[in-house]
């Protein structure tokens, strides 16, 4: 029964949610909204448990004095400050907003900006022409990079002026993105879509039930 009831619910709700996608009737849309609301109601309860595990993790780190345990204290300071100000005065409070805009947003931006350096290091590794395929990747990347900057077309027009068309660098870049890249992307998207349909059928029919906790 511990397995059968969740599987029965999964089947019923799965079929109902598919039906709501094809039925605009107010009854079916009401069912759709109701199910979404149930999901929203479950989230806060799960959040309590999540916060408890977060506290447990960092308390353990502090107790055991693991490496860099001091950062766990900062987690608690941040959590307590936001709770003390945010809960009584709400998220629109000027102090909460100030903390968000001047602490969290800059830290997020810092992490995001690291991406530029990581892209450079990953590209350096990926573009080493150790095989024919890697050479193709390198050549394509060079064309796209040159086509992305204005100087690419300038060089093309000056150096390759004997070619029948102007601004060839940006044209070539766009052709690679629109034709070759798009064809590959759409192939992946088609495969993913079929994979999603297949996985959904397996879940709705109870063939795939490892997400219920073990057992295939």
């Amino acid at each position, binding site marked *: 029964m511990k397995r059968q009831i969740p599987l029965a619910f999964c089947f019923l709700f799965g079929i109902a949610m598919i039906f709501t996608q094809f039925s*605009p*009737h107010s009854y079916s849309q009401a069912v759709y909204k109701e199910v979404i609301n149930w999901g929203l109601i479950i989230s806060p309860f799960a959040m309590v448990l999540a916060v408890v595990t977060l506290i447990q993790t960092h308390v353990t780190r502090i107790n055991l004095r693991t490496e860099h345990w001091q950062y766990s204290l900062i987690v608690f300071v941040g959590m307590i400050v936001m709770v003390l100000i945010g809960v009584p005065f709400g998220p629109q409070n000027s102090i909460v907003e100030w903390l968000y805009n001047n602490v969290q947003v800059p830290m997020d931006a810092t992490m995001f900006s690291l991406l530029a350096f990581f892209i450079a290091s990953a590209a350096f590794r990926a573009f080493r022409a150790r095989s024919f395929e890697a050479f193709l990747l390198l050549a394509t990347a060079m064309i796209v990079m040159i086509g992305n900057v204005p100087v690419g077309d300038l060089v093309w027009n000056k150096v390759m002026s004997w070619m029948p068309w102007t601004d060839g660098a940006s044209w070539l870049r766009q052709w690679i993105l629109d034709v070759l890249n798009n064809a590959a992307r759409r192939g992946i998207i088609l495969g*993913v879509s079929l994979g999603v349909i297949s996985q959904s059928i*397996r879940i709705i029919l109870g063939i795939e039930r*490892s*997400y219920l906790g073990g057992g295939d």
Partner: protein
Amino acid sequence: MTYNKTFICITTCLLIFLCGTYAFSQEPTFSTPTNVTAKDTPNDDGSSITVTWDAVPEDSGITGYKILRNTDSGEFEEIGKQLKPTATQYKDSEIEKGKTHAYFVQAITDSEALVNSQQTEGVIATGQWFHTGKTSLFIAMIILCAAILVSIYLCRNNQDVFVRRIPGLEAVDEAIGRATEMGRSILYVLGLGGVENVATIASMTILGQVARRTADYETPLRVPCNDPIVLNVVREMVKTSYLDEGRPDAYQEENIFYLTGDQFAYAAGVDGMMIREKPAAVFLQGTFYAESLLMAETGNSIGAIQIAGTDSEHQLPFFIAACDYTLIGEELYAASAYLSKEPMLLGSLRGQDWGKIVIFVTIILGVTLELFGINWITTLLQSVR
């Protein structure tokens, strides 16, 4: 002669005067909006009525339209804003359900005069149970689902379903073995998807298989989560995997924990774990966004064997560049079948291939027919919304 000239002159002046007086005394005539009809809007929940009328020529002198509505034969009231002279329809979404509504269209002339159309017949809006605009999508879904279901049925007792080798999944045992030999942990990252995300569920099924092996080898399995519901489901899954392997004592609940719900804070937290704990194997499976490369490059820098898998096609190049193995798109969904070798799951993979054949045939047929100027397949596919 003088008399005649004077007579002609007076008559001409009189005629000009009369014509001018007549011309200026006449209001310009405007035709009323024609063919005004009100119909229940198709394919909606019965919350709107669409009023349509014929277009008027540009030089008609009409500067706009007003729509007037009555409910259950009551007074007519103006609704909505004034419409442009080029408008030919109005969707009234503020009706009272179950009541009869009638409309007329009022044309506004450039001299601010109002010209009324005929009143439409009363209409009651009703909701539709099936969206006819989605018929082709529905048929496509039925065909693909049928292909998968039939394949599952045919393969239910067949152990010999061929599945091509997927190096990323072959390497799972290698990664776990390496971590065990090195005495280090395994880090499993489920991405930023919620539990409603199919890629997250696919990732969780791979995690279940990984947990079975780590239970056998007693290798620490660390799972930082960014969604509270995912956290609870994953804890239950991993716990059951350890129980199924007869190693409940090896299960450590504190190794599956909530990190944060914020995208870059999550990436920073995972990167910090990688640098501090130096896991021997890193699994990045699920839905990822801009944080994918932040995590994959950090994993690469610590020398961990990395197996990534995502259905986010924009993140795939990053994983391919930074990870040792990458499950591309559908391979993520094939993982549970591949690892468990369950006939029915393998049957669903074969069904997917049948679906691919249907799609390829449709594409080739569509392109061929387009070359001959026949475009019904293109029109049909474009109608899918």
